[in-house]
């Protein structure tokens, strides 16, 4: 952003129409940095300009979604490859400022019905909301009607507090929660209703870990509502909405037609009388055991091996089917022959957890996550790693999962996880890459709005290839890119390469990393990639970059053997570099036809030189022959003059 600020102080004009005041920062909206903006064509029309960093991958669908209970995205524009989203001002302050105390009828008319109708429409469009939280809900002054902030401008559920997430995603890190389902939104809506009905957030003041612990101990409805002054008419509704079992939660259709004091039935969770002890905690339900298994995997696998878990399920909970499944799972602790790459112990725990709680996210490699969220996890680990080796862990998981979907399919995972893993492996096959390249490409391929994550330009949020090209063209000087770095690692870093290749692949251009494998120097491979990006996306000049590449490319001219051809091409290179068209720039040097012609001519010249040398060597022999010839011709000449003299003498004697 330094550039745009330098260009015209604190104002940024986009699409000749929207004027963003970068110095007038507004409270974050939808989890994005927000600035005030003006539409220049209609005077006085004021907007909010949102600067999303890594928006939802489905933003293009979400942008066209309209509902009266959500702030619409009016338009989106790119400025120098940077995405800006414009939306109108919210009608009033957010609920985070003051919750207020709402009556049951106000809640039904102003919160439940409008949001349920929103969720119903979203479900029809196969979208989820995942942003129902107090700071994203706005209430007009004096009204009791909530409006949700713009959808899709941040990664799904990434900004949701643990309190507002169902257990199936609350156990994950914010970036690992994935798209979720409408049931997850119903849960968040339930928490909001509870907070508005009681006037304060439940479990206030507890840390995230404590909240989770409490919820697993007694179940979320009990943990949130016990001891609270919940209106009687909402108690049944809230118990259903906050249920830890997604199947028990009401559907949006039930909520749209809700009447006051409507009753919902929830299958009661029967806790075990005698708890199972794991990591010093007494656990009463299979769901809680699954969570603790993730926290204490070693103890859990010991319990599995001693068949304590299956016995406990069978005797205390009378869940005989689950018990026999668990027993089958633990049987695979025996050394497995075929799959060497899979750590059997970890896979067994993953399998056992999915048996204990089919709604739980995947547990693998020490992390709770939904497979579909892996690209977003990688983005988060790359930009803001929580722990130093987080990025490596996520990379390994993603690389393994994309490469070996069969290892997970054989573990009989719940359907939702299996579907997500299949999607990942299909995407990986389509990319046709391997190892680190594949992992780096993943986020870009899955999310077309993702900005380039290179350390050099990450802050700028450049998410269009032409924007990156222009930025590179401005930052290609010797101070940004020293000569030895340029010679060693080229113009781009790995993230930029993956970003450009993903964008090329989206346009149907074959990825060019093969050129690098063909033994080209890194900078030349980069230039080739940049040239194809320029041809495809951007026609503007890249003269600074071309001029930076000029000395490097001139050394490539050595393969031309003709001196004049080299000189001619050097002159042409200089001229093309000023024009800044990388395609013709490279074509000046990469000209196979010209090169072949040049080589043929060089061979002809060599042949001619050896021929001429032989002629020179034969000169003495030829001189002897020449001398003989000279003598002969001299004598012939004298003979002729002799005849002439004799004839002249006869003529003088007789004819005078």
């Amino acid at each position, binding site marked *: 952003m330094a550039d745009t600020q330098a260009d015209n102080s604190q104002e940024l004009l986009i699409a000749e129409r929207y004027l963003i005041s970068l110095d007038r920062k507004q409270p974050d909206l939808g989890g994005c940095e927000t600035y005030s903006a003006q539409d220049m064509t209609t005077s006085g029309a004021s907007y909010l300009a949102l600067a999303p960093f890594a928006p939802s991958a489905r933003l293009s669908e979400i942008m066209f979604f309209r509902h009266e209970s959500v702030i619409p995205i009016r338009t989106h524009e790119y400025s120098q490859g940077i995405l800006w989203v414009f939306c109108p001002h919210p009608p009033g302050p957010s609920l985070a400022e003051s919750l207020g105390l709402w009556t049951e009828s106000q809640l039904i008319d102003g919160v439940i019905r409008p949001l349920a109708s929103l969720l119903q429409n979203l479900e029809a469009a196969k979208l989820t909301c995942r942003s129902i939280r107090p700071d994203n809900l706005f209430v007009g002054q004096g009204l009791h009607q909530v409006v949700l902030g713009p959808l899709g401008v941040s990664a799904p559920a990434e900004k949701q507090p643990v309190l507002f997430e169902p257990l199936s995603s609350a156990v994950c890190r914010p970036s690992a929660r994935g798209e979720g389902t409408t049931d997850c939104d119903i849960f968040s809506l339930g928490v909001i209703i509870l907070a508005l009905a009681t006037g304060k957030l439940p479990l206030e003041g507890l840390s995230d870990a404590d909240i989770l612990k409490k919820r697993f101990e007694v179940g979320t409805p009990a943990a949130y509502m016990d001891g609270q002054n919940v209106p009687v008419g909402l108690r049944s509704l809230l118990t259903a909405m906050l249920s830890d079992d997604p199947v028990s939660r009401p559907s949006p259709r039930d909520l749209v037609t809700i009447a006051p004091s409507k009753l919902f039935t929830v299958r009661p969770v029967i806790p075990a009388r005698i708890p199972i002890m794991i990591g010093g905690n007494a656990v009463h339900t299979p769901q809680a055991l699954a969570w603790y298994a993730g926290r204490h995997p070693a103890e859990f696998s010991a319990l599995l091996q001693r068949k304590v878990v299956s016995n406990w399920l069978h005797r205390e909970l009378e869940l005989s089917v689950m018990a026999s499944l668990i027993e089958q799972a633990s049987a695979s602790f025996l050394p497995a022959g075929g799959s060497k790459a899979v750590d059997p112990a970890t896979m067994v725990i993953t399998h056992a957890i999915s048996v204990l709680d089919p709604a739980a996210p995947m547990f693998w490699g020490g992390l709770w996550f939904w497979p579909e969220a892996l690209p977003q996890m990688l983005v988060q680990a790359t930009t803001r790693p929580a722990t130093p080796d987080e990025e490596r862990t996520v990379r390994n998981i993603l690389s393994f999962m994309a490469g070996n979907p069969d290892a997970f399919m054989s573990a009989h995972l719940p359907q939702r996880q299996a579907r997500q893993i299949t999607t990942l492996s299909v995407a990986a096959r389509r990319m046709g890459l391997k190892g680190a390249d594949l992992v780096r490409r993943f986020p870009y391929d899955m999310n077309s709005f993702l900005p380039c994550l290179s350390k050099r330009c990450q802050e700028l949020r450049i998410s269009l290839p032409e924007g990156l090209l222009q930025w590179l063209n401005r930052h290609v000087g010797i101070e940004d890119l020293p000569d030895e770095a340029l010679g060693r690692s080229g113009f781009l870093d790995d993230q930029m390469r993956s970003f450009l290749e993903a964008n090329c692949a989206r346009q149907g251009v074959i990825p060019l990393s093969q050129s690098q494998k063909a033994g080209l120097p890194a900078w030349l491979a980069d230039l080739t990639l940049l040239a194809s990006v320029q041809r495809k996306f951007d026609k503007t000049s890249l003269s600074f970059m071309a001029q930076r590449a*000029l000395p490097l490319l*001139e050394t490539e*001219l*050595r393969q031309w*053997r*003709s*001196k*004049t051809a*080299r000189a001619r091409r*050097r002159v042409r290179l*200089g001229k093309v570099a000023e024009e800044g068209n990388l395609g013709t720039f490279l074509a000046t040097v990469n000209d196979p036809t010209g090169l072949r012609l040049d080589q043929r*001519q*060089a061979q002809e*010249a*060599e042949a*001619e*030189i050896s021929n*001429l*040398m032989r*002629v*020179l060597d034969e*000169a003495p022999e*030829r*001189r002897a022959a*020449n*001398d003989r*010839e*000279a*003598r002969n*011709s*001299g*004598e012939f*000449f*004298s*003979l002729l*003059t*002799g*005849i002439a*003299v*004799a004839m*002249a*003498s*006869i003529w*003088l*004697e*007789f004819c005078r």
Partner: protein
Amino acid sequence: MASVRQAEQDSLRAPGFRWWHGIIIGLLLSYVPGSLVVAGVLLLPLVALRFFDPNADGQRIMIVLFYVGAAMVHPLHEAWAANGDWDTCIAQITQPVTLALDWLSAGAAWLVAEASAIGGRLWNAEVARRERKSIEKRIAYLQDEWMSSDEDAPAT
């Protein structure tokens, strides 16, 4: 006259005389002894050349013969005009101008032959030198064009 010269030439060129050479010379001696003496004396330079320049081949002899022949035209005409009168013939061959002219013509023939041979040789040498120079120039050009590297390339 022509037959006399032919006979003389034959006797000089071929070392072995045939029997009919003797008959012809005998007949000529008996009919025109004066003219034969004139021709014999005037052809002496050829004999001398034969002795002093063993390399002189038929071609050279032929050249000298034409020059000497040119000098012989006038005395033989005189001898013919006097009907082979012996005194007139002796007077012809004792005239120093005639003798000098005869020997000078032989010398001139030799000189012209040698000089033109040398001139031709010089001309050929000049042509060869020019050719060699142009070949060397072409080789230098080709080597510069195709075999040199660009280390001295001008900085852009």
